[in-house]
């Protein structure tokens, strides 16, 4: 039990190491192409612009509004989705490193989540471009997105622990999660609004990812997240932390033998 908790403590405190690893992951993407991770951003920008145009043309929504809504929402969604999809592969992908150095393995989780935050930073440019395009400013409330980002990042860390353990033991967790995330993208109000579905708002309310997205998206669109958004998001963090701690304490010894 102690060795698992020590692993997490030492891993978290060794921020220098996971900082170096995460920025190196990013630089590795720059090394191969001039634009590096901005290719993801460009793909993201085309997707947002294309969808905004489509929804204004087909769904007859005001273009400016649709553009901003999707730019903010999809940027946050991409962050959460990449965390869910990448988590199961964390230990297999970093096995070479894990089996070479006497460093805490929790380091790899912090490294990957930090990398996802840095990618979010790149994609955030699309939202800023949308703001410039629409010519609006959400007001000071936009800064409320920062505590939101902290809570969503904590949520990513908390589920990454148990998903990465599960993914190290069972190699089909990754593909399974990928299929589920594809469905979640449609089920979560990213392309549509909660208000659009009339009486079926429970579909959004029951979805924890909706609340996490709102924590960042609402301020970016000039609104405060609701108390329900906060409560639901903090519950996600708490529940995932408990599950992850139990899983990590029970399985820490076994993880390197599965790689």
């Amino acid at each position, binding site marked *: 039990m102690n060795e698992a908790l020590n692993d997490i403590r030492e891993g978290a405190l060794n921020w220098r190491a996971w900082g*170096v*690893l995460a920025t190196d992951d990013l630089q590795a993407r720059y090394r191969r192409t001039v634009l590096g991770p901005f290719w993801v951003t460009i793909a993201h920008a085309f997707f947002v612009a294309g969808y905004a145009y489509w929804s204004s043309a087909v769904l007859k929504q005001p273009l400016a509004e649709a553009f901003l809504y999707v730019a903010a929402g999809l940027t946050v969604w991409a962050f959460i989705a990449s965390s869910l999809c990448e988590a199961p592969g964390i230990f297999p992908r970093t096995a070479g490193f894990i*089996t*070479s*150095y*006497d460093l805490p393995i929790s380091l790899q989780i912090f490294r990957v989540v930090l990398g996802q935050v840095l990618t979010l930073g790149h994609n955030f440019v699309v939202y800023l471009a949308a703001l410039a395009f629409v010519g609006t400013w959400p007001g000071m409330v936009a800064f409320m997105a920062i505590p939101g980002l902290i809570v969503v990042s904590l949520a990513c860390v908390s589920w990454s622990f148990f998903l990465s353990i599960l993914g190290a033991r*069972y190699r*089909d967790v990754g593909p399974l999660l990928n299929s589920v995330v594809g469905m979640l993208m449609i089920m979560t109000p990213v392309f549509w609004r909660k208000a659009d579905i009339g009486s079926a708002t429970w579909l959004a309310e029951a979805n924890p990812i909706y609340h996490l997205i709102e924590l960042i998206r609402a301020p970016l669109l000039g609104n405060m997240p609701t108390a329900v958004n906060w409560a639901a998001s903090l519950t996600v963090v708490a529940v995932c932390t408990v599950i992850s701690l139990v899983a990590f304490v029970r399985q820490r010894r076994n993880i*390197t*033998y599965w790689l």
Partner: protein
Amino acid sequence: MTSSLILDRAAVSYPVFTASRHQSVLTAAAGLLSFGKVRRDVEGIKVVDAIRGISLNLSEGARVGLIGRNGSGKSTLLRLLAGIHLPTRGKRTVKGRISTVLSHIAGLDAEKSGRENVAFICRIFGLSSAQSSNIINEIETFVELGEFFDMPLRTYSAGMQVRISFALATTMPGEILLIDEVLAAGDAHFMTRAAERLQKRAAEARIMVLATHSPTQLFEFCDLAIWLDSGEIVACGKPEEVWAQYAAAGEEIPPPLKRAVVTWPSPSAVRQERKVG
């Protein structure tokens, strides 16, 4: 700080997954849903007892050679000592920083050059830029790779790769050095230089454990030999004596020692009680 490396009846057994269903969460879920009636997920998983209760007590100046046939547990023992694998039973206690040469370039980035890799590892371990540039210079001189030092590791031969890993492990600050057989990939010239380097490290009173198939290396670098077979200690003691037993044994492996508690440096404490049957 005095360094030490202690194993107390440490054992390692791990599962080997041979079928995809062993690593399928869907099959595991089916097992749960059927209340364990259908356990296709665990059927046929083999468990390897790689290390069966080994006790070691190494302190400063210990230079230990591990010998034994392929698959006898040398590499697993090194990984256990390195803290990469945690013991499934028993305990490991360590004082001091560990550096390892366990595989050619595991833990290094094949896309980065030798220089970039060294700089990167220095940054991960939080060394100052002055320390890092000293280490990079020292390694560049030692590996004698010329222009290859600035080329990606994927262009290196196994011997060149092991030069980098060996130089890194012996140059980074650390009190405990663990080296697997990979060292053998180096050429004769490199082996001579590696020997000098290990002698120097030994003079600094550090702990070294080296797995080897070469009697020359064993006699040259080690003061104590441990003969492993099937994850147990068959014999331990003076390198020349243990090697002679090992070489003479051929296919006939004697039974493992009943209570082998290897303590070094303090050879008197090596108890050799033969297990019967």
